[in-house]
Every structure is written in C-alpha cells, then in structure tokens.
C-alpha cells in the first residue's frame, strides 16, 4: 500500500515534470507576447500576463504594416490554412486513388509500381528541392498556392497506409458489389470511402499539421509577402524587427508564434477521438 503510494507519486511526478518541460516555452512565449516592447527589451522574457494582449494581437492580426510591411497575420494564417488543407486533401485524394489502382486493378506492374512509390520515401522534398524549384519556376507558379501545394502532394506514406487498409477489406465485398452492378467508381465511392472514413480523417489530420508546419519549401517558393505562410512570417519578422532604429518588436514575434501553433492544436484537440479511432480500429 505504502509502496503503491510512492510509485503513484513518482510516476505522476515524472509525467508532470515532462508536461512542464514541454509546455513551458509555449507559456513563456504567450506571456511575453502580452507585454510591451520596452518591458521585454529591458527585463527579458516574461512569465506572467502583461497588459498589452489586445493591443499586440490586434495590431498583428489586423493592421497592415503592424507586423510585416504589407501583410497581416490574418492573411498569413489564411495562406497557411490553404496550404494545410490543400496538402491534406490533395494527399488523401492522390494516395487513395493510387492505392485503389494498385490493390484493385490487376495490371502487371502493380507491385513493382508500388515499390517505386514506396522508394520515393527516400527522396523527400529536401533532396529534390532544386529541380522542383526549377519546374515550378518554369511553370510560372512561384508565389502561387498551386506552386506551393502541388510539388508536395504525392505521398508514399499515405499510399502505403491506404494500400494496407484496402488489402484487409474482404474480397467478397468487391464481389458482392460486382454482382450488385456497382462499377469501379461506385465501389470506390459507395463502399471503400465510407469504410475508410476514420482512416481518411486520421491521415487528413496528420497531413494538415505537417502541411501547416512546412518550412523549407514555402521559404524558397515565396518571395512576396502576400504569399507568406505564418511559419515563414515568424522567420521573416526577425529581419523586420531589427530594421530601423526602433525598439525590436519581440512581443509581435511571440504573438505570431502563438497564432501559428493555435490552429494545429485546435484541429488535433477537436478531432482527437476520430484520430485515435482511425489509427487503432477499423470498422469492418
């Protein structure tokens, strides 16, 4: 009894320490973002609320020139949202169609093709960034949403997950559908998509977060402020900050950071139960 009490205490202690360790920087950033620029300049990082929350966030979110020269944080959030959603939806659509073709259409190269797709895991964007840039620039897609999303959209991981899932769907279901006069499109839409909806949700959530957090590609791709995503905004703000003779606006940088974390956190929190369901169980 005594023993178990101490065990409980120590395990909880470790968990609490871990939580504090992980969330402390976020806390500090949030607190610091609610102070005035001169407080931060004089006293360094802040650990408790200051009085400038509305002022800072209002300026960052809505006032042109408040954070960058031309673009507001709201617009950058919009860009990030488009990137995140386009990335997630595109990846799900593409990888699901690829997996559908590989699993259900008996063409001779299905298995080799699958392994070729799988091998592209060894070639992430970072490796092929120069040719990708060439292509996108050649097509005149720099600083566009299309150029931002399309080169990232193919997903070996997604294809792999969908393939494994489709393979576990009993074959009789396809046969029953064939006897029920359902063609390939019908079978995909009426049977496979509803069956894999938790799987789709899980992949969408993961991909949204990954897309939202893209850094290197948008950094290279976007040269105009209007196409900045919020993650790029954070990087760029430091250049803006130190320009001119004014006080560095650190509170705005912190506010931008908090704004950048918020949407992915919300998505994960809201869809958490779906997410876990999709990864753990399958409705069959």
């Amino acid at each position: 009894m005594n023993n178990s009490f101490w065990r409980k205490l120590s395990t909880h202690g470790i968990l609490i320490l871990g939580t504090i360790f992980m969330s402390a920087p976020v806390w500090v950033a949030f607190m610091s973002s609610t102070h005035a620029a001169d407080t931060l300049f004089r006293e360094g990082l802040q650990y408790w609320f200051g009085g400038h929350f509305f002022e800072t966030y209002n300026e960052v979110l809505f006032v042109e020139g408040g954070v960058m020269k031309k673009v507001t944080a709201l617009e950058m959030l919009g860009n990030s949202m488009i990137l995140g959603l386009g990335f997630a939806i595109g990846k799900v659509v593409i990888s699901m169609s690829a997996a559908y073709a590989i699993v259900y259409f008996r063409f001779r190269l299905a298995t080799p093709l699958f392994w070729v797709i799988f091998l592209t895991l060894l070639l992430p964007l970072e490796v092929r960034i120069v040719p990708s840039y060439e292509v996108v620039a050649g097509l005149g897609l720099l600083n566009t949403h299309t150029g931002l999303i399309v080169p990232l959209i193919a997903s070996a991981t997604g294809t792999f997950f969908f393939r494994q899932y489709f393979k576990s769907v009993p074959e009789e279901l396809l046969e029953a559908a064939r006897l029920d006069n359902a063609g390939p499109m019908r079978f995909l839409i009426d049977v496979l998509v509803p069956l894999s909806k938790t799987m789709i949700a899980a992949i969408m959530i993961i991909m949204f977060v990954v897309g939202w957090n893209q850094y290197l590609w948008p950094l290279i791709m976007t040269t105009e402020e209007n196409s900045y995503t919020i993650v790029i905004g954070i990087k760029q703000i430091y250049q803006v900050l130190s320009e001119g003779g004014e006080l560095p606006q650190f509170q705005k940088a912190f506010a931008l950071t908090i704004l950048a974390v918020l949407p992915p956190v919300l998505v994960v929190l809201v869809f958490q139960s779906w997410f876990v369901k999709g990864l753990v169980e399958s409705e069959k």
Partner: protein
Amino acid sequence: MSTLTLSGINKRYDNGAHAVRGVDMEISDGELIVFVGPSGCGKSTLLRMVAGLENITEGEMKIDGVRINETSPADRDVAMVFQNYALYPHMTVFRNMAYGLSNRGMAASEIEAKVRETAAMLRIGDYLERKPAQLSGGQRQRVAMGRAIVRSPKLFLFDEPLSNLDAKLRVQMRIEIKRLQRELGVTSIYVTHDQTEAMTLADRLAVINEGKVEQMGSPMDLYSDPKTLFVASFIGSPHINLLPASFEAGQLQVGATALPGFEGLPEAVPLMLGIRPEHIAQHPEGGIEISVDLVEQLGADSLIYGAVSGFDSAEPEELCVRAGEALQLAPGERIKLNFEVDRAMVFRTDNGERLV
C-alpha cells in the same frame, strides 16, 4: 424460369492449378442442385465461374440457351450468398438489400416495397435500420439471403452459406432455404462439403472430386446406386463399410473369409467390398465375424462397431452395423453377421470403378 447448361467447363488458375476439369451439366428450371465434395475439389471455383467472378478457361456456359462466358457478373442476373455473408458493414440492412436494385435504376418507391416484402418474408422487417454489426449471425445470414432474393434473379448461388452458424441454427436455416427455394421456384446451386446438408437439400446432387463431377443424380440414387468408390464412400452417414477383398476361385475373399454369392469378378485385381451399415444383420450362421469394440445407442437404433476377424491384427478392418433393436453387447464379444448380397457393392480399388 431459367436453365443453366455447362459444357466442357475447365478452369486453370494462373499458378497452374487445374481446379475444374471438363464439367458437363444440365440444370433445369427451378431445380436446387447441390455441389458436394471434399475441401479443395473445385466446388467454389465452379460456382464462381457461374457467377462470373472467375474466367472460364475452356468450355461454354449458357443461361436459357444464351452463351454467358463473356457476360459481366452484373448482367448475368445471378445472386450469390457468400460464406461470410459479405454484407456492406457501413450500410443499414435496408441499404444492403436496396443497393443492387438502385444500381439497376429501379424507382425508389418500388425498391422500398420490394425490400419490405422480402424482409417480411425472411422475418427481418424489424431490423431494417440496423447495421450488420448489430445483428446476430443468424440474422446476418437472413439479410444476405434477402439481398439475393430481393433482386429476383435468374439463379441463386450459395457458397457454404450456413457454415458460420451453430448446429441447431444450421438445421433451421437449411429447412428455410429449401422452403424459400420451393416457394420462389428460382433455379439454385448450393455448395457445401457437408453431405447431410447436401442430401437433405438437393433435388439433384453433383459429387465433385478433384475438379470432376463423379456422379450426378437424386440423393437416393447416389446413396443406393453409386457409380464409383468415391461417391459410395462420400455419401452416407455413418459411412459405408469398405473391406479390401479379392476374387479367387469363384468366391470373394475378404480377409480369411470366403464369401459366396459373387460371380464374374476379375481375378488378381485388388477389390473393395462395400456394404451399408443397415444392410448387415446379426445371424447365427453369418459369414463375417466381428469382435465388438463399441456400441453407440442412438435411441431408435444403435450402431455397433467392431474389428472383423480374419484380418491381420496390425491393420484391423472396422465394421459398423446399424441394428434396429437396442442390443446389449459387451466389448470384446464376438458376433456373427450376415449381409444382403444383392445390396452389397464391389469396386476396383485402383480406379474406383463399380463392378457389382
């Protein structure tokens, strides 16, 4: 309303397996045909070829005289009940049954009426809004049947539809399938490896072995007049008694015993004497002697098992006798048996051909 004709049907899988070898068959309107045979004999393959789910390597298949080899499964107008039911897990019972109809462009009101009528017939009307996962095994089975029936197809195909049910339910559903098939009068093929199911359901029965139809006929024909050793040993419960024999000097030699009453059999060929358990009876001057091992009391009658005297004790030959009255026999007791010579069968062991 439909007949099915198979001529010279062969199936070779890509891996070289020759699963169906030259099947000819004529199935008339409204008949319930059962394919029965051991596991791996090609029953499912043959059925799936009829459904259009497997290509036909060789031969011709006709429904109502029209060649269907190249017709797609949907256009053949056949319905299949799968062993694992293959219900769409995310659709309600109603949608499961309606799906094939709406894909064929039937009007919603007509679908509604047909599904409700079929559901009532199968007593699943109360579950129409449930998903398959919320049904018992027996109810799922009915839904699978309903999905087939609601389409009023030309052919019903069943691939071991009852093997996932417990024994009691299986008997119930068997009776129900038979009743429904009679009522609807739809030509049907039913695949099973359970010979009791086969015997009770079939109008005619096709015994399949290694991809070939060994014999086709009514259950009683196959039971009393099997053409091959395989059919004789496959049909009947308890199994037919088979004793190795040879024909020497005008008499059938079984172990150390010579049995009179057989004529004109080839000599120097290994033979097999087949006697059904109910054709053997105790007789004080019987030619066969057994030493009793076990008596199974079944109520109405009893089964006596024993080793036949005159065989090497290292390889004893068991014999089963169906006795009408309840006999009080102790294990080890020796009894003499007589059998009806004109109902006994003799087969060649090498090719299974029936001689007598």
